[in-house]
């Protein structure tokens, strides 16, 4: 579906061209690219890497986790199998994906010197921090730059002359395991995100935005855009009707089945359990999450999308469960094992960042809580959980979260000089809940 004034493919291509132009021919030392969920960030990184390597610029790529680095190496090799690529890894066992060993032009090493002279070298920020060089790289690409801490950038910034910073400002901010209030408000607060420090010191850097989410369906993009990116809206690359989720087995009328049908039809489903204060690993809510997953698999789901004309079966590998805490994820895994389900990804928001599934089942961070702490209100957490899906998202939550939000005003101390993040968690949570309320299925297990 296209509209008269906005053709997603063309708009995305224009944005990409502008980014590549600034990166290759610009005069500034840095370029910042904000990318909403699923807007083709990795594709952009790969394309920029190939163009920079093609222009003969020595290039280092900094990602945040080993999985991200391996993924980028595989994508690079897929696009250009002939390009010599270096994968710098730690000296631990299983430091990198063994699939890389099968690629003829990818060289892996734990020593940067072994990879000297290769057009592109990729590694994690943590590994790069231990590298010392006489001659800096001409260019760097920093991936997931909003999830990188300022101090991590400080450790690697001496390695390159110019850099392209790519990331999603709406996802979870980096955090420190000890208090860092003493530096709050300083432009180089080491616990802040790398991009906020970079822009505080270099306000003139060109900033670009990818305008189209290719992951989120037309049912989800407006909500995620309004709730989490109110000042930098984006839209979905596909239209209503481009994607369909259907089930071979009809509903048995139970809560999980009704919410699955609601989500299949509208993209969103809220399975609301009776209001109650519960421990974090709320057994009823955990069982409800597991029951929804079980029924998703049992009912023979099939997904139709722009990727293939034929329906693709909805398998365990295409479903993810998202939680706020690790013990919740562990409880859901145990509940799924009890129901004989395996192969479904169950993880916290932090670990689901950057990943994509057909259907997600989310245990709402505030479900059953007596209080709304800053952790549970964090905008990025809800944003990650609500933006991993290509087709539908089912949220499992106890009733009463709206009242909880209104009862507990934010009590975090105000720090002078810090950038206040908008929208705040309170507002974003209300926006999402208001939308979910239209797709509510109440259920008493």
């Amino acid at each position, binding site marked *: 579906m296209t509209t008269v004034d906005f053709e997603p493919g063309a708009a995305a291509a224009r944005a990409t061209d502008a980014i590549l132009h600034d990166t290759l021919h610009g005069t500034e030392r840095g370029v910042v690219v904000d990318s909403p969920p699923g807007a083709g960030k990795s594709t952009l990184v790969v394309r920029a890497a190939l163009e920079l390597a093609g222009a003969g610029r020595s290039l280092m790529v900094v990602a945040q986790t080993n999985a991200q680095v391996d993924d980028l190496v595989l994508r690079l090799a897929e696009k250009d199998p002939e390009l010599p690529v270096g994968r710098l890894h730690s000296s631990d066992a299983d430091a990198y994906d063994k699939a890389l060993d099968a690629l003829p032009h990818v060289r892996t090493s734990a020593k940067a010197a072994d990879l000297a002279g290769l057009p592109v070298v990729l590694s994690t920020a943590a590994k790069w*921090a231990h590298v010392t060089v006489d001659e800096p790289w001409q260019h760097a690409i920093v991936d997931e730059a909003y999830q990188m801490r300022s101090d991590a950038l400080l450790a690697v910034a001496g390695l390159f002359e110019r850099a392209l910073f790519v990331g999603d400002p709406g996802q979870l901010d980096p955090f420190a395991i*000890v208090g860092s209030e003493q530096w709050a408000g300083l432009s180089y607060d080491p616990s802040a995100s790398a991009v906020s420090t970079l822009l505080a010191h270099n306000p003139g850097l060109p900033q670009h935005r990818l305008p189209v989410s290719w992951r989120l369906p037309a049912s989800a993009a407006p909500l995620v855009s309004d709730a989490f990116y109110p000042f930098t809206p984006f839209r979905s690359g596909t239209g209503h009707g481009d994607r369909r989720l259907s089930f071979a087995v009809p509903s048995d009328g139970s809560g999980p089945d009704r919410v699955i049908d609601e989500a299949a039809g509208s993209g969103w489903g809220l399975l609301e359990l009776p209001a109650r204060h519960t421990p974090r690993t709320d057994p009823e809510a955990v069982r409800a999450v597991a029951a929804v997953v079980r029924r998703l698999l049992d009912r023979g789901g099939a997904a139709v999308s722009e990727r293939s004309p034929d329906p693709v079966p909805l398998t365990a590998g295409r479903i993810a469960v998202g939680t706020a805490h690790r013990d919740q994820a562990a409880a859901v895994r145990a509940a799924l094992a009890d129901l004989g389900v395996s192969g479904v990804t169950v993880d916290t928001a932090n670990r689901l960042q950057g990943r994509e599934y057909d259907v997600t089942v989310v245990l709402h961070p505030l479900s059953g809580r007596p209080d709304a702490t800053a952790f549970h209100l964090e905008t990025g957490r809800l944003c990650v959980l609500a933006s991993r899906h290509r087709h539908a998202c089912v949220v499992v939550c106890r009733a009463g979260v709206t009242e909880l939000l209104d009862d507990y005003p934010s009590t975090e101390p105000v720090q002078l000089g810090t950038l206040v993040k908008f929208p705040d968690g309170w507002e974003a949570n209300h926006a999402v809940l208001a939308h979910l309320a239209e797709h509510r299925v109440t259920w008493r297990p």
Partner: protein
Amino acid sequence: MSLITTLARLEAVDSGCARAAATVRHRHLSDRPLVFVPLITAGEAGAPLGALVGTDRDAPRLLVVPQPRDRDLRFTFLAELADVILPYLDSYAQSVEAAERTETDPETGKRVKVETELCADAPQLIVPSRAGLDLVRLLGRSTRFRRTAEQDPEAPYPAPPRVPLLGRWLTHYGERARVPGSSLLLALTDLLSRHWATGQSGLEDQHLGALLAWIDPPAGTSGAEAARRAELARDAAGQLLCPPAGPATDPAFDNKLLAPAFERYDRARTALAAAEDPVEADERLAALTVAERAVRELVESRTRPTWDAVWRGLDLLWALPEGARVAERWTRDRWSFTGHRDRVLAGEPPQPRRDDAVTAANKLATREREQARLEAQEALDDPLEMAGRRLAGEAFAGEVTDVVMAYSEGRRPSPRPLVTVRTDDEPRLAERAKVFRSLGGRPQSAEFAGYADGGGLVLRILDKMGRGKEPEPGSVPEKGDRVCFTLFEHEQRGGAKLPDPEETPWTHGGPPGEPVAEAPDTVTEGDVL
């Protein structure tokens, strides 16, 4: 809060008495700590009202500012404080032992061992509460940049000698207190609530009187009742029976007792200044002395109960055996003390107002590393703490039911014995997850190899078995042994080396350059009241 702490708190509520939250003492306690019980003036940040300070519980030194808004009197107080604290610090600076330190050789860039000295012990400051820590920092910040007449003869309001030095030491101690597990400067309420769980909230635990009441209630009353009385009970005149541990004072005390005493002092001073002949002046001086003594007595009446409570709390803590790894952390505190002693001796300038980018990042990295180290060490030192980690799925203990010898593949096969551990714990083990146990104080690592047929976890031991083909005796657990493995590492890797501050990259604003003197705040009406 771990499940064990939650349970301890519930039990405390149930029994009306605090429960042990630790079986050992997790912080170093000096045998001669300097206790500092400060009070501040309401409504004026950083204006000290007085303090009890000293190392002898029976003979504290009382320091009082009879009119806290008078800056000269404030300086007198700080000078007196310096006269107590600096000799105490100095008494530790002299006794040293030889030590080695790894440094980067500036010419070769290699890490080399350097002979150096380390103070044999370090001075320890104890304040009653967390707010006391903040006051130590505040006093440090407000005094370390003051100039003495000797440093700067032109300075309009010279500080007494040694006050800036006091400020530097207080700043150092205040910063060090932010490092997890450090013990140079401790707040007693933090220490006590680390080792005992009460039936009240963490916020209420910051009231020293109430906290001690829970831990050590007077005979015949429950901790809960005693805590309530400590918090709320007032005498006939409306004054709290147990004054707050400060530095803030109770408003009823400020309004009913302190303000009138200040007023009498001010009047006596004005009168003395207006005296016209020596006889009159003598009389008025006597009146001023009486007024000053009244303020002193008020301050002593509000600090002495806290002073005694601090020593009572210390007695409770001294009675606990020290954790096995506490001494190692204290050694780091000694390094910190020695390092600052050397910087002062070398004539380095006071700590800057704000950290530069590199210093801030280094401090954060150190603190995160120390936090992880502290959590691991506390669990290894204390079975109660380990129980919390086991309940959280981060460790497991059990009995070895089987040991099968196996070898790694490769040219030189090394022993990789498979050990089966039967446990009732439910560790969150992923495939090939690394686990660690303490073997003679050193971590031995193993990887999770799967579940045994008859139940139990199979672990493949990976290291600390010597270089031979056969593992060294005692390095592999035997059938029937009780073992405890953790999913978290016991030791922390050193972080990445950050650039020198002069090499601060463009992303962080470039090198900080020479410090620029900031213009002082403009004088407002409030400054000249």
